[in-house]
Structures are given as C-alpha cells and as structure tokens.
C-alpha cells in the first residue's frame, strides 16, 4: 500500500493538458496510512454477493470483513439497486467512445495502412478491416450502432441516464459509509482462451469493477487469500468521490493485519 500511496502522491493533481482532471488539493496519502481503521464504516453491498459469485471468492471477502470488525470498524450491509444495469451501461458508453476514439486509425495520418487501395473509401475500409482485431471490431461495431441516428436515444442516451442513477446510488451509500468492500471479480482466473467464444461471459467477469468507472469513484483491489485450486482472490475497496485517502487507509490497515499479503 505504501508503494500505491507513493505513486498516487506523484501522479495526483491537475494536468493542464487534460480537461477532465480536477483542480483540487492533493490529499496526504502517506499520512492516511495509519495502520488502524477503528470507527470506520464499511458497507457490504448485497448485490455483490449474489449466487453468481464463486463461494470461494465470497468467503474471502467475508473473512476480510471479519478482520475489519476485529480492528474496530463497523461493517454493515448496504444496497446499490442500480448495480444490475452498470455492466450494460458501461459497455454501451465505453464502446461508443471507443468507436469514435479508434476512428483515427484510418490509414491516413499514422499507424497501419493497407496496401493496394483503389480509392479513399477503399483505404479506410481495408485499413480498418485488416488493422483491427476481433474484440476491437466488436466494440467499434457496438459503439457505432448505439450512436447511430434512431438508436442513440434508446441506447447511448439511456446508458448515460443510467450512469447518473448509478452515481446517485453510490452517493447515497456514502452518506452513511466511509467505503465499500466487494469482490474484485466474481470468480478466480479461468484458463487462457476458455471463454473467448462467449464474449458476454467474459464481460460478466468485469461486473464488480466497471461500476466505479461509470460512477467516477476511486477503488483499489488487493489480494486476499486463494481458492481451493490456489488461485488468488482479490477484494475491492471503493471510496467516495475523491476519497482515495480513505480506501488507502482501510487497505493499509487490512494489509498490516496480515491479510492482503502476497
């Protein structure tokens, strides 16, 4: 956690060349590493502990929760009802942005350019067909579709509205909790190539982490035990907006408690 806090202290702050960065004071991340978390209120959102979550993962997270209680933190169940929609919203919004962000790889200014093109349109088509991989193409096509006239309102706009509801959900939880404890992934690692044929199954593995990207919240993942096969399990700590210091404090306390080691 010290490494994490050190790096964050260095990269945090306003970047004059990034309009999405904020001009707010950088918190004292190193000072947040006190090693204790007495009185901290930690929420366990019940939506993150459904049957879809591997029992080994669930047990690891619940044992982390017990450790927190033992250290004097208050752990209680909370609820994020909009979470059901986070994955869909995330994939619609991120694919839409990707379809536009990746459009610059058209073979004109830089990067790969296909050979033997007979005209401009051919150059665009061939370059993009040959240059992009399968998953990238899938997202470009999904993103292009949801931004198309006639579909924008039903998909992209709805996803953005959902995003607002998800943000409100989290904001409500952070009125009574300092941070949220969840699994990082619903399952431990699968074999290489095992789920490639079913992209939706793969996307589902992101279900625990995409919501913070949607909501603009700080989160960290730390190791927390292993499953029966010896594969690592991760727990995720989510903080309120700009409260990176709170999750660092909670994570460091758990680390010092002997959990979360390598």
């Amino acid at each position, binding site marked *: 956690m010290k490494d994490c806090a050190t790096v964050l202290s260095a990269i945090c702050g306003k970047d004059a060349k990034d*309009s999405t960065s904020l001009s707010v004071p950088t918190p004292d991340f190193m000072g947040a590493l006190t090693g204790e978390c007495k009185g901290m209120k930690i929420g366990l959102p019940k939506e993150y502990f459904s049957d879809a979550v591997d029992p080994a993962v669930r047990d690891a997270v619940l044992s982390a929760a017990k450790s927190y209680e033992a250290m004097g933190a208050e752990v209680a169940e909370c609820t994020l009802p909009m979470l059901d929609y986070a994955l869909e919203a995330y994939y619609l919004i991120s694919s839409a942005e990707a379809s*536009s962000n990746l*459009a*610059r790889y058209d073979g004109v*200014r830089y990067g790969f350019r296909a050979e033997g093109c007979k005209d401009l349109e051919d150059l665009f088509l061939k370059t993009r067909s040959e240059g992009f991989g399968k998953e990238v193409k899938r997202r470009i096509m999904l993103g292009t579709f949801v*931004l198309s006239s006639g579909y*924008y309102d039903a998909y992209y706009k709805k996803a953005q509205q959902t995003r607002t509801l998800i943000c409100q959900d989290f904001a409500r939880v952070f009125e009574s909790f300092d941070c949220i404890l969840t699994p990082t992934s619903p399952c431990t690692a699968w074999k290489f190539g095992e789920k490639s044929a079913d992209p939706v199954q793969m996307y589902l593995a992101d279900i625990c982490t995409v919501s913070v990207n949607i909501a603009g919240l700080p989160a960290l993942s730390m190791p927390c035990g292993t499953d029966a096969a010896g594969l690592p399990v991760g727990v995720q700590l989510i903080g309120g907006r700009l409260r990176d210091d709170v999750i660092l404090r909670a994570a460091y306390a758990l680390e010092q408690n002997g959990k979360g080691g390598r």
Partner: protein
Amino acid sequence: MKYETVIGLEVHAELSTKTKIYCSCENSFGGDTNTRCCPVCIGLPGALPVLNRTVVDYGIKAGLAMHCSIASYCKQDRKNYFYPDLPKAYQISQFDLPLCSAGYVEIDTEEGMKNIGITRIHIEEDAGKLLHAEGANFSLVDYNRGGVPLIEIVSEPDMRSPEEAMAFLEAIKSTLQAIGVSDCKMQEGSLRCDINVSVRPEGQEEFGVRSECKNVNSFHAAVRAIKYERDRQIAVLEAGGTVEQETRRWDDAKGESFLMRSKEEAHDYRYFPEPDLAPIYVDDAWIEDLRTSLPELPSEKKKRYVETYSLPKYDAGLIGASLGLSKLFEDTVAAGAAPKTASNWLLGEISKILNESMLEAEAIPFDGKALAELIAMIESGAISGTIAKQVLPEMFAGNKSPKQIVEEKGLAQISDEGAIMDMIQEVLAQNEAAVADFRAGKDKAIGFLTGQVMRASKGKANPGVIQKMLREALTALK
C-alpha cells in the same frame, strides 16, 4: 406561376484568436505546410483537447452583437466522419446545446429595415486542407488550419431574395469585424457559407423542399448560387417535377451546382458529447463583462451618422459597416471637415482607389487630419477639386501631407489674374467657333471655354476666377 424564394444561410467564420481552439499552436493564415501543428491538432493518440477560453469569449461577443441569448450551460460534441483533412476522424463542434441562440441581425431592404433571425451560433474546430498536385494520383494534407476556431452562424429561413442574402452576409461580416472576433477575409477562407434554398408559390405559407448548397466561398458566389438554385427549382416545378431534399456542390467557375448527395445518402454523424471536455458554464458576470467591452456596432454607427451628421442613410450604412472608413470619417470630421464632404471623398475617390488596388479600408496610410487638410485646401481655393484628385493617389503612395505634395509638385491653384489672362487670350484665339457661338447668345459656350483654360493651366487655375475673367474678356470683344 409566381414563386417566392426562401433562403437560410449557415456562415462559418474563422475567429482571429492568437492560438487554436484546443492547443497552443499559432492561429494565422499562410506559412509553410504543416508547421503550425502539434500532437493535439493532428490528433495523435493520447493527446487531449483543452478549450481556449478566448474562443468562448469571441463566440459570446458574436452572440451579443447579434442579439442572441447566451447559454448558461452548454457542451461540445463530436461529429464523426472520415475524411483525410480530419485527423481524429471527428470534428469537435456543438450539437444540441449551442453557445448562443435566438438572435437577429438588421438588414436594409427595399421595403425598409428587416430583421433576419439567427437560430444559433456555435463554436467548433476547422479541418485541415487537402492539396491536389496536378496530374498526381495522390493528395497531400496541410494540417495548419486544423483546429483553427470557427463559429457557425445559422440563420432562420428569413431571406426572400439574393439581395437580402447579400445584405445579411454584409451585416454579419461588418459586425464580426467591428467586434474584432474575425477578420472575415473571404480570399483567405476565413468566411464561408452554406446556402439553403427553397421556392414556394407566392402566397403559400408552407415552405417548399429545400436543397443545401456547399462550397460557396464569396458573397458574389453566394448570390450566383442562390439565383442558380432558385431558377433550377422553379424549372423542376414548372416541368411538373418535385424538388428533392439534397446537398449540392457549387462550382463557381462553371456557375452551376452539382448533386453531392441525396437525402438517402445523408451522413449519420453520430454526434455525442465530447467526453474529453467538460461542459461550459457561463455566468452573468462573464456575459456582462463582454457586453460592456463591445464597441459600437455598424448598425448603431449608421444611426448615429444619420442623426448626428445628417449623412444620407446610404452613406451612413456604407461608412458604418467598415471599421477603417468609419474611423477615418470620424477623424476627418473631428479635424474640421464637413461630414457630407468627407463622406463624398471616402465613398468616391478613396473607395475607387481601394477597389482598384484591392485594398481594405484599414490599409489607408493617411489619417483624418490629412484628409481634412485636403478638403480645407479645396475650400480655401488653394487647389481645385481636379487637382485634389491628383493629390489623393500621392497620399496613398507615401507619408506626405497634402500640403507637402501640392508644394513639391507645384500643384497650387493659379489665382494670379495676369497669368490666367494670358491663357484666356490664347484659348480665345484658338477657339473662334466657340467665341462666335457665345456672341450669338449661346451661353453654353462659356463652359467649354472654361474647360479649355483649365486644361491649359493643367487644372491649376481657379475655375471661379477663369469664368469671371472669361466673361469680362468676351464682353470686351463684343
């Protein structure tokens, strides 16, 4: 059947900010190709846009000058399309929430003043420029213009003739120049427009189907393109056909427009909010700051010139529309010249020289004091009007005062009666027929003879003195 033409315009004006809209590259015309670009304006992956605040200032100023309401909240959007001059493959523009909306500009028409509605004004970035080498099977791209800030001014379909469209364009140009947000140099492409034209039978309330005409690069071309499109649509209707909604491309050299794409082929730009930029919040203090910084607008100048200086509306409009002319006019009057005389010089000889040398009024090298001095010399009889017209080009050529020019070139008016009498005697001797005419009672002959004496004096003799002395000489001959 009689038809009415309905015209709406979309005017793109390059803003004269120091730097581009999303990076700190210099915003200026010309220069070697691809020397005014950086990772941001050539869209390198990872480079992010940062909005130039002055662009918002200029956009708001334009909105205020055109009586728009300014949005307290607006955003920027991506317009996605593929073209080699657009390195990111999207243009950052504004879609559903423009910076300014619901304004108007005043134009002069044959039926009096008319307000042309402004639907919206939004900010956006310009694209690069394709360069086609003759005979080559490739094109080159110059990205210097990429990321140059633009405002797009969209009018309501409120114009009813090419003349009204011209007046609207003139009003936009003079307003943008007056408030200092764009130099509006058509030849440098800093003002461009798209034209929407439809026709409808006179008296019909419903609009006809409109076409959009692109690639119109001068006011003159706009008028021609409108006339062409109006006549084309009327011919289609008269032949029993229907006008299609389509986008056409104006070819000014051929004087024709050509189908670019039909409604079915229309682009789907997949607009969506630019995720790399935050929304723009404009508070009242910001707007009021800019409002108080606005100079007098051309329409206001026109009114003032009519009221304060009793200039004819026509003169007042032309002078008020030009920053250069209005400054020179006011300085000349302040230096003691009569307003109408100053106006006559500005709109007459001075405009003639400007047109001939393709200069803008801002390029006039002399000031109002010098022009007032020239006018005073005519009025005092020191030089004739004819001589003054010879002095003026010299004033354009260097930084000499009219008095200096007159002295150096020996152009001072001859009022010495002895010298003039010599010339009169010579002219009378050479023009016996005219002298006979005068004796026969044809008083007109005196005008001719005066002209001859003027010529003999190379324009330097005082015409009043010539006439007086001519009459005396002729009477003496009787």
